[in-house]
Structures are given as C-alpha cells and as structure tokens.
C-alpha cells in the first residue's frame, strides 16, 4: 500500500500550501446492522446426579438460541495488501462499506499494510459476498474466506 501523501512525501511535486489531514472523513454504512434472527433451538435434557430411579424428575428442557449469523459463521471478508492503493483511500473505503468509525478503519488499514491482510468482517456468506463486491467496486483486493 502506498504511503499517504503529505507535504514532503510526494517529492516529485512541491506543495506550497500546508497539507490538511485527510483523516477526518466520515462514512455511512451502506447497510444497517440487522438484528440477528433467532432461528435455532437446542434442546438439552438434564438428569440430576445421584438420583435414584424413584427420584428422577421430569426432564428439564433448556432452550438455547443462537443467532442466524452464528449458524452460518464460517465466512470472513479479508482485504489484502496492495502497493498502489493509497492509505487514505483504503481508510475511506472501510468507513463507507462497513460503516466503521475512522479509528477502526485506520486500524484495519494499518493491519493490511503491515501484516498483508486484515479480516474486516465475518458472518453469513451472502452478506460477505456483497461486501467483497463493494470492495472490488472500490478496486481493493478483497476475498471471501471460510473462517478457521
């Protein structure tokens, strides 16, 4: 990822006016987070320990719910390092696509820059595909991967 341009980083040009920080951008998420739908019910039967046959209670039925996102979890959106895209541009894209605040977007951008990749999101495959499509629309190198 290319270094952010400042007054003296673009040596090919002489900028005669002080450069203003580009990091004040705000972005709006393209999707609002939707409340996770409760879809799974897991039933567990509990039998009290040390209980003789005559004292066995009726089985307790405990309901445990997991969100839809949890059930279909094994996908994550990964953005990969790219020596051409500008750091400020990548930060802006993360803010816009994921609705992340600037600090979080910068954190992911730096992770991409320093570690070569960053996991931006995980959840259902369908939504992950939409995020990757948006990221490709902004010309970032992004892939959908199975978690773990």
């Amino acid at each position, binding site marked *: 990822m*290319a*270094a*952010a*341009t400042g007054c003296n*980083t*673009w*040596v*090919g*040009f*002489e*900028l*005669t*006016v002080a450069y*203003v920080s*580009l990091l*004040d*951008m*705000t972005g709006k998420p393209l999707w609002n987070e939707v409340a996770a739908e409760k879809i799974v019910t897991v039933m567990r039967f509990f039998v009290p320990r040390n209980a003789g046959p005559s004292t066995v209670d009726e089985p307790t039925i405990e309901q445990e719910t997991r969100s839809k996102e949890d059930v279909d979890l094994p996908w994550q959106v990964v953005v990969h390092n790219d*020596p*051409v*895209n*500008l750091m*400020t*541009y990548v930060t*802006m894209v993360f803010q816009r696509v994921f609705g992340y605040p600037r600090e979080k977007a910068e954190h992911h951008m730096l992770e991409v820059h320093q570690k070569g990749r960053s996991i931006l999101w995980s959840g259902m495959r369908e939504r992950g*595909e939409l995020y*990757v*499509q948006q990221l*490709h*629309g*902004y*010309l970032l*190198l*992004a*892939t*959908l*991967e199975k978690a773990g």
Partner: protein
Amino acid sequence: MCSNCTGISCSRPSRKRVDMEICRRNDEIEISELDPFLAELLRQIPASTDPEGVSAAEERLFSPPADPKETEICAEWKLYVNPELRRLFQTATETVAADLEQLRGNEKTFANRTLHIPSKHAEAWLSALNQARLVIAAKYDFTDGELCDHHRSPIGSRRDLSLFQVNFYGFLQEFILRELNGWDKEPDG
C-alpha cells in the same frame, strides 16, 4: 495563488512558478495554470484505465473473490459480478472523459485552460484515477521500491514517465479525498 489553492511544480526544470494550481471553489474542484505536460497526463486518464489486453492489468481490475479452489463462487462471480463491475468502472471513466473535454485543443491553448470538476463527479474521478494507477502499475509491474520513489524524473524512459503518471494521479486522488471530506465546510480565504 489564493490561500486555499495548492500549487504544483514538477521537479523538472521549469521557468514557471507553478505548473498547476488546484483548489476547491464552492461545489467544484478547479485545476488551473495547467502546464501542457500535466494537461496531457490528465487527458490520458481515460485511456490509461484500459487494460488493453494486458492480463495482469485485467486480473488486477477484476480480481478473484475467493481462493480459486472455491470454484462455485469464482464462476458465479465471473458470470454475474464482473460485468456489473465493468459497467461501474466504465461509467466513472466516461464521466471523467466528459469533464476532460474542457481540455480539448492543442498544447498552446492548454496554458489558459481551467478544468472544473463538479463535486458530484468526485467519486467518478476517484474511481478513474484508481483504475488508471492500478492498470499502469500492473502493466509495468512496478516494484514497491519504485512506487515509493517519488524522486524519479519523468524524463528518462516510458517506464519513468508511467511511474510519474501513477504518482501524479495519486496526488489528485489525495486532493479529491481531502475535498470530499471537507465539502460541507467553507474553503479558507
């Protein structure tokens, strides 16, 4: 130069104080005092977005959405998403090309030309500039070291000129990003 303008001088010898001025005026970006060389680079933006059959450039613009082993996702992507992305990129390039019509003419008249970029076209410019930078970088397979070398003179080889082009377009991107951020604010001065 107004207080909110940024003046640009190329590193090559120039008798002019600046080779280009760029600033925001109301709801548009204004590029004036255009040096013919920089004006020509601007005019080359739309053409530079074309991968021209260079597979590395084509692959960079339309990168795979997943590991190639995920054959189903990759196949569907090629079929349904890539055509949509192609249209998106094409629309942006056409918007920029239409704006650049303001620079139509021969070199002698460039000096007095001013390019106005409406704020509503800023996104298209960001996209087209990014397309052009990625395509050029892929065509010439620039190394990380080269991409960080902003000292290199554009006068040397076609490769050096292309590297300068990538950096110049990057500068424009940075300026537009800055202005997108501050569009709601009044410019200084």
